């Protein structure tokens, strides 16, 4: 086992800091710093669907808007949302929807907006982690939180929470991963790279363990605001 480029051990997360209730106008919000990543998340809803026909008579519609600021990446990003942002928005919204009791709010919309203002690999899982906290802050009834983390391979080692340098390694495999921490159900899972079945089995265990560490940080952040013992 070798130290990673930034000195971490394979199962070490980068420092994570979550603040709750940072966007005053929103019904719920959170700010996350995860390594160099800095992301704001805000929740509006349940609210009226506009236009009405997007509503669903059986459950709330969940929309998730993942966006990156133009200056949040090394090369200036076009202000128009790209295909990557649209795909991430789709799968992240689906992941959160699994945890929300949407059936309690038919014909409404729950809107989640996240804005990445600085980035260094792993923004989608950091954003999802913040968004879950923002949903809790908004008082949306949930089965469980969603806790997310990147897992993968870099420089011949299986690791959690890859940073940009690791993502750029020749042999890099990047796996955005999210679970409902209490049931260990996987709600987000993507992958890019060349991975064996055996590697995946190890990584999945590492991911569940790491996501549960993220969960503790999420709970702590919510406690700091609400002084509640258990979510």
């Amino acid at each position: 086992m070798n130290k990673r480029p930034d000195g971490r051990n394979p199962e070490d997360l980068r420092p994570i800091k979550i603040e709750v209730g940072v966007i005053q106008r929103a019904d719920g919000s959170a700010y996350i710093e995860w390594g160099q990543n800095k992301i704001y998340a805000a929740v509006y809803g349940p609210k009226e669907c506009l236009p009405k026909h997007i509503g669903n008579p059986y459950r709330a519609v969940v929309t998730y808007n993942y966006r990156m600021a133009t200056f949040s990446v090394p090369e200036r990003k076009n202000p128009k949302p790209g295909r990557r942002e649209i795909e991430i928005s789709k799968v992240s919204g689906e992941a959160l929807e699994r945890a929300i009791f949407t059936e309690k709010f038919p014909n409404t919309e729950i809107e989640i907006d996240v804005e990445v203002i600085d980035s260094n690999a792993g923004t989608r899982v950091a954003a999802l982690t913040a968004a879950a906290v923002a949903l809790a802050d908004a008082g949306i009834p949930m089965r469980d939180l969603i806790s997310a983390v990147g897992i993968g391979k870099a420089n011949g080692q299986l690791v959690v929470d890859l940073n940009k340098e690791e993502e750029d390694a020749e042999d890099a495999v990047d796996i955005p991963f999210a679970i409902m921490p209490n049931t260990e159900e996987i709600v987000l899972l993507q992958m890019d790279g060349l991975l064996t079945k055996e590697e995946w089995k190890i990584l999945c265990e590492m991911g569940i363990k790491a996501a549960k560490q993220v969960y503790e940080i999420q709970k702590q952040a919510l406690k700091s605001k609400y002084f509640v013992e258990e979510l």
Partner: protein
Amino acid sequence: MNEIIWDLIKDKTIDELKKGIREDGRSLDQYRPIKIEYGITKNADGSASVKLGNTFVLAGVKFGLGEPYPDSPNEGAISVGTELLAMASPSFDVGPPDENAIELARVVDRGIRESKAIDFNSLCIREGELVWIIYLDLYVLNDDGNLFDASALAALSALKNSKFPKMENDKIVLKESTNIPLNLKRLPILNTFTKVEDLLLVDASLKEEKASDGRFSVCVTEDGFMTAFQKGGIGSFKKDEIDRCIDLAFKNAELLRKLL
């Protein structure tokens, strides 16, 4: 039968699946009949159509010329686009690709790209200046479920069918081909599993998809690698479910690869 009805009979569909009954008599881990046709259009540099039961997808390749990305000066590139044609379903609209089309295109793209099936170095004409760009466009003509696997198969087939166009003075000579094929070093196969309660279905029909909340896709190569995962939909997967999907994917991919 239309989609609204499938929503209404969702419970019945689930009951039958639990008894192991699929509408067309397949077992849960079986694909529908697959039909691949190559070279379906002359103006494309490569093309193929795939029928997966009634699901019907076309793929076409055009080569273009361009500058390489600054961080990979001796590599060509691939660009994958998908159109869920309005004709393919009463629920698809005319217009630019929506999030569903974009997800589909990107998953197909990743499965192929990450497998290193295409040797991007071989697409370099002059380092830092001129490279081949592969434009691979997918057209869904009929959606009867499992667009992911049908599209990935059509994409791979079209690439396999592709020949480089003629080039003169750094420009493509239209309507002339070289007969030099695009070599594929691997054949990555996408396998999508649809979760209906505790069942994992292979190659779900649209009716079955309507009874499901979750989907998991894994792209596998002949030499034991996985090159892409994608979980989609509102459902969730347990670790052991993912593992079962992976095992089955390697098994089924071998059968599918033989069709190419």
